[in-house]
């Protein structure tokens, strides 16, 4: 595969690993947070950790869209199905996320709810066209990367006069979340977790550019490298972070120059600005209420806002007892610190959201990395074939 295999080359990986070994200061620890689940997935899938020095730790951040969505919002989605009898269109990853009362969209579907897995907002529009007698709601989730297509869908629906289509908007913003992590008492005051630098999510930056990170790199004095998602990108970015830390710099650097610019995609940005506005506050799983961290549909497009159309209530739902997803999402705990990990919480039967998506750190630990655990918890009893 052109443009992909080049970034997975074993020989280059070995050269980069040698440079990292050589340049890393062996008297210090490097705790580098990959904010985005895409990086977590790449690190585990390609075994990047094996090529890193022992004093470099990847701290897995909250950038997995399904992981950070609070339970209350999934409860809302189930309300849409059960009380309003809508056709709910969703990306596949959302299907298995646990909601309150041990429900999930997949379980709702099994008991007759009309949940459709879609690959794009265009599929959702098509479903609305083909079902004029039904209300069709697109369950919009994701970071800045997935927001422009939702904006396009809303504008198309308006243009086409689609009366039965609306969007349940859960789009969230990356820079606000990173700031919230650095602002949290564990990181700032107690110092129990030190995060020395960040891998910036490159797909997000294709849209927003690298500039939005400049403010906090400066104010929190942490280096940020916008990193591509191929394993060589991750390694090169780790080397760039190590160099910055060794030199006492804290700048925003761009490793993913083949796509990302400082300004980002201006057309997409203006499209998003036309349709969405920043929510005053939004609940994140793990981070709690984070100000200015999510988007809502502008009043001008209120007709397409499912929250208004169906008057969805704000639901405060608590996590399953013992679930450490909130701490894991902030990088304070590791999946293996959770009592539920690998006991009652496995990918077949996820209790917390981090076990659902392959981008979630618990699922990545379990599916790709559990041979590294000294106790080697096995799934022998819990095999679901």
């Amino acid at each position, binding site marked *: *595969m052109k443009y992909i295999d080049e970034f997975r080359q074993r020989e280059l990986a070995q050269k980069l690993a040698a440079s990292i070994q050589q340049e890393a200061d062996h008297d210090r620890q490097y705790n580098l947070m990959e904010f985005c689940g895409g990086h977590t997935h790449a690190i585990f899938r390609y075994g990047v950790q094996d090529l890193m020095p022992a004093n470099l730790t990847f701290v897995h951040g909250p950038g997995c869209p399904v992981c950070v969505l609070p339970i209350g919002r999934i409860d809302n989605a189930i309300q849409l199905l059960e009380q309003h009898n809508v056709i709910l269109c969703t990306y596949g990853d959302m299907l298995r996320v646990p909601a309150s009362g041990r429900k999930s969209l997949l379980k709702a579907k099994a008991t007759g709810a009309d949940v459709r897995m879609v690959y794009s907002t265009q599929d959702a529009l098509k479903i609305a066209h083909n079902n004029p007698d039904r209300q069709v709601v697109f369950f919009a989730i994701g970071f800045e990367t997935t927001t422009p297509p939702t904006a396009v869908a809303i504008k198309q629906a308006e243009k086409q006069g689609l009366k039965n289509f609306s969007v349940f908007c859960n789009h969230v913003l990356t820079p606000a979340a990173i700031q919230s992590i650095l602002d949290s008492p564990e990181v700032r005051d107690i110092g129990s977790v030190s995060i020395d630098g960040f891998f910036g999510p490159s797909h997000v930056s294709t849209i927003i550019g690298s500039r939005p990170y400049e403010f906090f790199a400066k104010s929190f004095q942490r280096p940020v490298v916008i990193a591509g998602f191929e394993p060589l990108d991750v390694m090169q970015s780790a080397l760039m972070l190590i160099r910055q830390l060794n030199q006492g710099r804290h700048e925003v650097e761009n490793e993913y120059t083949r796509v990302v610019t400082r300004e980002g995609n201006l057309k997409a940005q203006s499209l998003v600005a036309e349709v969405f506005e920043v929510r005053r506050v939004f609940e994140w799983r793990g981070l709690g209420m984070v100000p200015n961290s999510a988007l809502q549909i502008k009043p001008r497009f209120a007709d397409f806002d499912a929250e208004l159309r169906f008057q969805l209530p704000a639901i405060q739902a608590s996590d399953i007892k013992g679930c450490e997803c909130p701490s894991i999402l902030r990088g304070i705990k590791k999946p293996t610190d959770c009592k539920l990990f690998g006991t009652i919480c496995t990918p077949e039967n996820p209790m917390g959201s981090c076990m659902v998506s392959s981008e979630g750190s618990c699922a990545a630990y379990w599916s790709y990395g559990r041979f590294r655990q000294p106790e080697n918890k096995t799934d022998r009893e819990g095999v679901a074939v």
Partner: protein
Amino acid sequence: MTTRKRFPLPLNIQDGVVDMAHGSGGRAMAQLIDQLFIKHLDNRLLRQGNDQACFSVAAGRMVMSTDGHVISPLFFPGGDIGSLAIHGTVNDVAMSGAQPLYLAAGFILEEGFPLVDLERVVISMAAAAKAAEVAVVTGDTKVVERGKGDGIFITTTGVGRVPDGVNISGDLAQPGDAILLSGTLGDHGVAVMSSRENLEFETQIESDSAALHTLVADMVAAVPSIHCLRDPTRGGLATTLNELALQSQVGMRLEERAIPVQPAVSAACELLGLDPLYIANEGKLIAICPAEKAAQLLAVMRAHPLGQQAAIIGNVVEDPNSFVQMETAFGGSRIVDWLAGEQLPRIC
């Protein structure tokens, strides 16, 4: 035969649909069986028109296997539910090292299913059975009301005979054994996905659906000491190896670079956020054999048209956790776990 006399009007295949009468046991059902099923699947035992097929068998070890086939869409690049129903069961029988002898087929048809599609499926089954030289010797037809089926479900059952001196089972893998794969991964799953309504990406990829028993026959003739054979269908290579590791209470180590995947399949998986190791195959097999026989077995596999891209992909190790581990092409290592639920595309 006196077909014309028994049924004054021929079956209207061009415009007709399956109706409840086709499953009622009456004349309509007899006509469907006669003018569609027997017509295409024709053989001496089926023609006898009994509720069972009666045949003699040689002394020795027999195997029997059954497989239900449900697939959407029914027709996909490289095959359809008909050919799949033959290949699936022929392969399940063959994975014991056996030569398949006879098949039985049960059809569950949904009211309203076009007869023209049914005939297309049955013609495809007949062609697959003929190519495999395994006859469908008995069958059954039921019709369910509209909305209670998905057009057509086909269950096939097969019997076969294991050659003397062959003992193949999923619990016989030994530490030190070599793991061989007969060809590229993921062709079937990606071909089917590419033709699903909500995906529709253009690709040249065709399903690998094929009957593997002649390949197996060559393999067991050359290396009767093969320990395990299995076809990595649903759940793909990853899940099948985990099953074998668990059954045999061993671990496995794979070498990602040795695992063949077509570039087009890799690209489709990349686009959809899927992993070829977990995608279904319908014409591939995994063989586990003593290490010293691996080179010989590989040569035999590569000499067969269905094994040209065969490769040694890893080996069996001792591991109380029965982990399947892999050295990645990139140079790291990771677990290759069971498939959890369904493979779902990632969001971004």
